[in-house]
Structure formats: structure tokens, C-alpha cells
């Protein structure tokens, strides 16, 4: 996975990164789940993050790519990658760390107010 000037290996998050991700997603879950398809939901998440706190995108990338947030900020400053590069990286991150599983786990743990639901393939 290439982000800015660097290559990153995409491996699943460890538990603390996943828990932090759930806490970051918390303010966005309600509105995100109003979307009908997985694409609507993801689009809503990105839109909300850009409107509320763009640093949350950096936090999510840092957890997914297992790197320091400063490194991501540095890459962004050098190549202005907040656009498509970052979104692609986040999409890849959520492929290997499935968003439905993150949300459902967050709901059971009491971190998130809502989960993805039962059937993650059709919604």
C-alpha cells in the first residue's frame, strides 16, 4: 500500500488499535448507518470526518497502517495526499479490518451506540 512517498504493509490491526478506531468512529456511526449501501455508508463517514474533524482521518490511517500520526501528517504535507491517496488507503484498511465487524464488536463492547447489523453482505 503506497501512501504519499512511502509504502506501508497492510496487516490487520492489533486490539488496542481496533479499540481506538472504534472510539474514533463513535461520533460518525449514527449518521453513517443511515446510508443504504456500503458505499453510501463509507461516503457518509468520509464526508462527516471532513466536516467535523479531519484529524480523525489521520488517526484512522495511523491505526490501520500501524504508524505514527506525525509520519502521516508529514507525508500529507509533502505530497498533499489528503485526497484520493488517503481515501484509498482507508478503503484498503477497512477491507482488511472489516468495518461491519468493527461496528458490531464496538456495539457489543458498549463503545458504539450502533452496530452494522446481522447481514453484513446485503447492506
Amino acid at each position: 500500500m503506497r501512501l504519499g512517498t512511502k509504502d506501508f504493509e497492510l496487516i490487520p490491526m492489533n486490539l488496542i488499535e481496533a479499540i481506538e478506531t472504534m472510539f474514533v468512529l463513535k461520533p460518525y456511526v449514527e449518521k453513517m448507518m443511515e446510508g443504504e449501501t456500503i458505499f453510501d455508508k463509507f461516503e457518509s463517514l468520509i464526508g462527516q470526518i471532513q466536516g467535523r474533524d479531519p484529524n480523525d482521518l489521520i488517526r484512522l490511517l495511523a491505526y490501520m497502517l500501524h504508524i505514527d500520526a506525525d509520519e502521516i501528517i508529514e507525508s500529507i504535507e509533502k505530497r498533499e495526499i489528503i485526497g484520493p491517496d488517503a481515501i484509498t488507503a482507508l478503503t484498503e484498511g477497512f477491507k482488511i479490518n472489516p468495518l461491519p465487524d468493527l461496528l458490531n464488536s464496538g456495539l457489543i463492547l458498549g463503545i458504539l451506540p450502533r452496530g452494522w447489523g446481522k447481514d453484513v453482505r446485503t447492506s
Partner: protein
Amino acid sequence: MLRARLGLFLKLERCLHDLEEAVKQRNSGSVVSAIYRYIATATSESIDFSKLSWLETLTTFFDIRKMNTVSIDLPMLKTRIKERAIISPWDHPDRPFLIWIHLLAQNYGWSLTEIESLWPEDAAMYVQEILVDEQLIREWQYSLSSVAYPADKKGKVKFRPLPRPSWMLRGRPRKMKIPKELLPIGVIINLSDEDETGN
């Protein structure tokens, strides 16, 4: 791995309590620590969690938790106790869990090993019986005291019973407000209306 008997079950409940507190405080480190402790306690094995992904760890945690859920229809367990605002000076984090062992030992004279070997469901039923007995004895003693017969403004004496815990009260359960976001989503079809109209 087998279902936990009371001794282990109470230790697991303590881990879940710590997890709940950690989530409230938004402390990721403590959340993770409570989950690791829960799995390690349940399996009695040293596990290298660094080799597991978050999904593997959480799936293990949820499976063990599901296996050790007490699912009996017991009034005492159905009522959610409000968190006490005033903490007694003798309170400590393990106290809510030790009370079960204390009550069973005090009333039946069983040893710690015997009590810890009980199934959690059996222990819960015994504890409820003990609490019912204790309450009824207290009510009888209270009814013999003048405190139970206060006089109103006109000087008329009336019996005022000792209040019972909510799970011992008969009647309809208290209505709970459910947040809008937790209500079912979509169009609600009322089947009873359809039946009346013949549709």
C-alpha cells in the same frame, strides 16, 4: 474449555465490570487489559495476544462470554440495580462479587471450595432465596417496632411497611424510555390491525 463454575464466573464478572468502567472512561489501554484478563482467566493459559489480530481476540472473548452468560428467569437478576451515589467506607472493588460467597457460606455453612464449585445459575437461585428470607425476617422485626406505626398530622397511627427491593415488588415493570436510535428502523406493519380489517 468448560463453562465456568461460580468461583471462576465471579472472577470473569469482575473483568467485565472493569471493562465497563474502562469504556465509560474512554481508556483504550484498560479496555484491552480487561479483555486480555478475561480470556486469560477463562482459559487459565498464558496466551501470546500479540500474535492474534483484533478480530480473533474479540471473537474468542465474545464466544467465552456467550458461553458464561447466566440465562435463567430469576427476578433478582432481571432488575438492574442503580449505581449507588454514596459509597460505604468498607466498600472495595471485589465486594459485589464476594457478597455471593459470603451469603452462601453464612447461611449454608459450605466451604469456599464447595461454593466455588456451584453452577452460577444454582448459586443465583440460592442467593435469591437467602435474600427473600432475610427481607421477610427484617419485615417481621420492623413490624414489631413503633417506627413502623408513625402518626399522621391528625395523630392517627397507620402501619407503614418496610420497603422491599424492586425485584420483590409485584406489578407491572417500570416503563423505560428507549432512545430513538435504538428503536427498530423502517416501516412498522401492525399485524393486529390487518387482522381486524381482514387483510
